[in-house]
């Protein structure tokens, strides 16, 4: 996206004193970043569905897997204009699901609600017309509905997260005007909780999350990355 950068021009009369010029310059300096930011940043909202891989695999007589069900996923991304082929993006991502225990050869048991919130910063790069890619890193926090089981001693703080995303906005028509498109997101983090550590799990498990979402952008503009 290429947008005009907002600028404030002002002329200071020679008759004004040095102090007045300095004060005015300070005001300009303090206002300018705000003006630039509001004019440059675009927002994208996305809603879709997320798959999360197994959080815990255990073996008690038979195999036990704990993982969230398919979950609704929502995200808001703030993106700067592209400069030298890259844009900076800040992402907030929320999803909530039901945690399930899968006993090998046995039942699937509901373990209660589970909400995740991830905040990331990254870079975005146009690939081909309408298609752009994003790399981001950040942190993810689990909010369990019940503080029992693997979350009995808490969720263990913020977990480092890294991810990639691909967005496609058709380069013409209504979709382009409204910034409508689709987005595929993948991220990875290492999962462990204090309760798991207390029970002898000595290392984290890599958890993969994949989300497919529909997205829209504000302001609606052409050339959305």
């Amino acid at each position, binding site marked *: 996206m290429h947008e005009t950068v907002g600028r404030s021009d002002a002329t200071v009369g020679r008759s004004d004193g040095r102090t007045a010029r300095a004060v005015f310059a300070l005001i300009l300096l303090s206002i300018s970043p705000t003006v630039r930011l509001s004019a440059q940043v675009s927002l994208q909202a996305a809603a879709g569905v997320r798959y999360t891989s197994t959080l815990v695999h255990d073996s008690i*007589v038979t195999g036990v897997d704990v993982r969230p069900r398919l979950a609704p996923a929502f995200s808001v991304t703030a993106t700067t204009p592209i400069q030298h082929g890259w844009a900076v993006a800040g992402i907030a991502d929320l999803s909530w699901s039901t945690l399930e225990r899968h006993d090998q050869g046995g*039942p699937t048991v509901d373990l209660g609600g589970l909400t995740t919130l991830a905040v990331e910063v*990254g870079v975005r790069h146009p690939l081909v017309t309408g298609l752009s890619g994003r790399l981001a890193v950040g942190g993810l926090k689990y909010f369990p509905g019940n503080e*029992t089981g693997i979350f009995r001693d808490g969720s263990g703080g913020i977990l*480092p997260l*890294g991810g*990639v995303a691909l967005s496609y906005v058709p380069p013409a028509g209504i979709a382009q005007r409204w910034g409508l498109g689709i987005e595929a997101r993948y991220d*990875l983090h290492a999962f462990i909780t204090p309760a*798991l550590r207390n029970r002898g799990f000595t290392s984290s498990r890599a958890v993969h999350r994949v989300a497919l979402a529909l997205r829209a952008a504000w302001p609606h503009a052409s050339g959305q990355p």
Partner: protein
Amino acid sequence: MKRILATLGLAVLACNEPTPPSRGGTYNFADTIPPDTIIVFHWPSSRVPVRFYAAPQGNLPFLVQRAFAAWAGLFLYDELTGTLASDSLTADVIVIWSDSVPPDAPPDTAGALGACNGVTDVPTVDSTSRLTGPFHIQLTVLTTAMYTPGQVQACMRRTIIHEVGHSIGLFLHSPAPGDIMHSPPLVDAPSEQDRRTVERLYHTPATILPPP
């Protein structure tokens, strides 16, 4: 860009499949009927929360709730949950005082051994390998020697945990004095071996089903 990719790559490498902790070190929980009938019972996930009824006398509801929480808190995957039932007719486990109601007092573990007794009656099993009714637990204050109210309370706390252990499927006693399922119970809470045993029980296919 390369740095970010390298970070992601390192994260993947750093997160190999972790090995589940060892769960060795258990005692036998399955009863047998000679020559070869093995009795394994646990409350299945379709029948939890287990409904406990505690006669509303003295601090029995508190003691029962505490005992059940001691067991339920051992599970990592919420295999066992329970609730206090207000009506004994709908309960899976009924707990009563057999005669006198001990006064509520701060527990005094010193010299508490022998101050009380507990018995769990396992319901009969019908031809479809299904239990026919609720478990019954009776608790008795022993009067063969003089015990303080605190000693009786300390005895009751550990005895109720022991008896609730039977009602959740630990039908046999542990040979280790450090386990709450040792008879008589000499400790105040389930041990690591109690935990490993009950975890193993709840992932072993049952041969006896709960009442409908």
